[in-house]
């Protein structure tokens, strides 16, 4: 019996020792080099969130040598899809790594911030090379030393970027006048309406006639009433019209003394939404929730949605289909298979777009080069091709209906009679937006936009629901805002 006990005790001790040993054995310097020049290591389609375990490049090679891993960070696969379909200049020995963290609960920015703050001490292959930012928080990164000047540091020329819409450059220009990012899209806002519902309510689905009926807020209200009488809702939820008001404000969210300022236009949004909610003109949904998504689909009874240009191909299209697109089929990857999978599917083709009661813009994604990147040349190539090349950008628009960042390319398509969007029932929506894209004014943005925009929508949801009164909702908004940004003050 004691012999057995001794063997057993010995086994247990050995097992414990081995668990410690396993923790130590990761960094084996004798590991053979994973990538070699003969390896056709082009774009990596698999989403691998872990950095490549490559050993560092040979220190004897001069510093100009490009890094072997291109790390791109984002919060969704919008850019990834475009990159894989349209960018062909990745050198054979470079591996592209996409790290995607969803932006819910601020997870993307938290992860990005941590990685950027430790950029200096990270291994070359782990350093972030390129990352995406949204309009709402672009200023935070633009004004920090973590983004590179695209002209002086990355190497783009003024000629390269001359074809872009100027507002896309203004928004990412820091306080010293340096441009810190670039985008492939411009995002004029529009109102997407259900053609079938418009025919029922207004008697027509022709975009010009619908626009006439919705051209001012007063007329918008009238149509809402008519839609209600026929049993439809004008809007899906509380946040749908938010951007129409918030992007036409006359002052930024935060003034020079760090006071939170609620602009008159935001006030107008609160009043309109409360009015609509009380009269039952909306379904009480919040942006991005399940009910909101299903309202855009075949079961929905909503007249229309306020959307920006990226919303059409990226969000509305997916929500409008009855059967989801098969894996791997996208407008960018395989236009023919895409056509087959979408025609007659759900309410594909039942949407049309008009400018709506007020001009506005909504969001957009920018590419920023991270300070400390070891792939400057590749980054420059990517930026040049994906955001400056008129041919590439025009192809992107033809395939995806996204409104791309090249004045000439867009105006060409606008004048082109043959360009029509199958999803929008044959409408040439680019023609509608070339004018409004030129007039976008982003001068009232602040680094606090994201938290404050989300905060006010969340806080006033209770007010629209009838759960709290106006003053309590306002209090809740200030409380949440100051929790998120402790350096702000309530007026």
């Amino acid at each position, binding site marked *: 019996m004691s012999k057995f006990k001794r063997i057993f005790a010995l086994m247990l001790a050995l097992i414990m020792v081995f668990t410690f040993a396993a923790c130590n054995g990761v960094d084996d310097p004798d590991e053979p080099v994973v990538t070699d020049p003969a390896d056709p290591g082009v774009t990596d389609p698999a989403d691998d969130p872990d950095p490549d375990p490559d050993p560092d490049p040979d220190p004897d090679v001069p510093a100009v040598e490009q890094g072997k891993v291109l790390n791109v960070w984002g919060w969704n696969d919008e850019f990834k899809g475009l990159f894989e379909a349209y960018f062909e200049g990745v050198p054979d020995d470079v591996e592209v790594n996409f790290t995607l963290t969803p932006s819910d609960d601020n997870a993307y920015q938290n992860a990005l911030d941590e990685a950027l*703050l430790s950029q200096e001490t990270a291994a070359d292959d782990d350093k972030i090379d390129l990352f995406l930012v949204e309009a709402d928080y672009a200023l935070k990164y633009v004004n920090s030393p973590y983004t590179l000047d695209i002209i002086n540091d990355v190497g783009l020329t003024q000629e390269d970027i001359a074809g872009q819409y100027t507002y896309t450059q203004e928004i990412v220009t820091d306080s010293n006048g340096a441009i810190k990012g670039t985008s492939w899209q411009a995002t004029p806002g529009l109102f997407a309406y259900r053609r079938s519902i418009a025919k029922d309510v207004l008697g027509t689905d022709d975009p010009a006639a619908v626009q006439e009926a919705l051209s001012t807020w007063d007329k918008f209200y009238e149509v809402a009433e008519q839609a209600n009488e026929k049993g439809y809702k004008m809007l899906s939820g509380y946040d749908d019209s938010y951007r129409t008001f918030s992007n036409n404000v006359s002052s930024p969210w935060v003034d020079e003394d760090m006071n939170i300022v609620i602009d008159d236009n935001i006030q107008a949004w609160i009043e309109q939404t409360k009015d609509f909610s009380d009269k039952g003109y909306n379904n009480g949904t919040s942006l991005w929730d*399940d009910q909101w998504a*299903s309202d855009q689909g075949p079961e929905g009874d909503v007249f229309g949605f306020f959307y920006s240009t990226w919303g059409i191909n990226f969000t509305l299209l997916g929500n409008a289909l009855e059967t989801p697109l098969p894996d791997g089929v996208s407008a960018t990857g395989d236009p023919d298979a895409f056509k087959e999978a979408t025609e007659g599917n759900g309410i594909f083709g039942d949407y049309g777009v008009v400018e709506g009661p007020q001009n506005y813009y909504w969001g957009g994604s920018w590419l920023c080069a991270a300070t400390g990147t070891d792939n400057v040349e590749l980054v420059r190539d990517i930026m040049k091709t994906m955001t400056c090349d008129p041919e590439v950008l025009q192809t992107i628009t033809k395939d995806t209906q996204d409104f791309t960042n090249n004045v000439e390319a867009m105006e060409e398509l606008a004048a082109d009679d043959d360009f029509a969007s199958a999803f929008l029932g044959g409408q040439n929506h680019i023609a509608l937006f070339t004018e409004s894209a030129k007039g976008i004014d982003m001068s009232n943005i602040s680094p606090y936009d994201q938290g404050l925009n989300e905060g006010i929508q969340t806080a006033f949801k209770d007010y629209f629901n009838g759960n709290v009164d106006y003053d309590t909702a306002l209090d809740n908004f200030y409380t949440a805002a100051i*929790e998120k940004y402790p350096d702000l003050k309530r007026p």
Partner: protein
Amino acid sequence: MKSLKQRKSISYSKWGYVFLLPFFSVFIVFTLIPLVSTIYYSFFENYMSGLTQIGPTFVGLDNYKTILFETDLPKYAWNTFFIWILGFIPQILISLLLAVWFTSKRLDIKFSSFFKTVIYMPNLIMAAAFSMLFFALFSDVGPVNNIIVSLGFERFSFMESVGGNRGLIVLMNFLLWFGNTTILIMAGVMGIDDSILEAAQIDGAGPWKTFWHVTLPSIKPILVYVLITSMIGGIQMFDVPQIFTNGRGGPNRTSMTLIMYLNNHLFSKNYGLAGALSVILLIATAILSFVVYRNLTEKEAK
């Protein structure tokens, strides 16, 4: 003389210290040092604005004053207490009932081990996953609402009504923990000496009197343990309401618990305020545990 010193009694006491060492080193590194540094940093103003760090600058008791007087802390404390007590009372009552039934020789329930396994199972599910499940089930377009509509009633928004929101969190807490409590109390009841129960029976005590005067006092230590651990768990309630309300804290923040509020401060890495709140919670938990312990166990000394 020499013989006394030579008579070595083999002392194994040093091995005791050696075996305690791993626990203490882990405790010091992972619990004691963070605890001390949290208390230390709670006296500093320290948060991030965008990518720039503000602080740490010493501000003394400012953080504590802000937390206690300028925020809605009493509201969140009340939320936490209310949701906890609403879940705890049914939990303890039903657990006592089930424990007595399962251990009763008179009733002799068939398949009792099957039942015991099943009621314990919810405790094994990760609380976050459980919460996510309820979130999907009770959402405005979820299965439960569909059933309600098909029965002819109007769609009820569980998430947006104060009662529905809190009620579901209470239900989740109850389901998660009543199995655990039942097993514990059963262990306590089975430990009661049979002779005492026989004596009570001979004296003519019915089942209710036996329960009230014999069983309950005998399992008092177990009940104290359950109360204290449940209370500590209640103060720290976080994952269930956070996932269920998507971080919002329910309509008008009526389901926001203390730790959810703490989590909000970590959004901007506000270590100053978060530290102050943590210290306050630590003190509150310690006081409550002490009070409960003293009140319910001092009678044992008699």
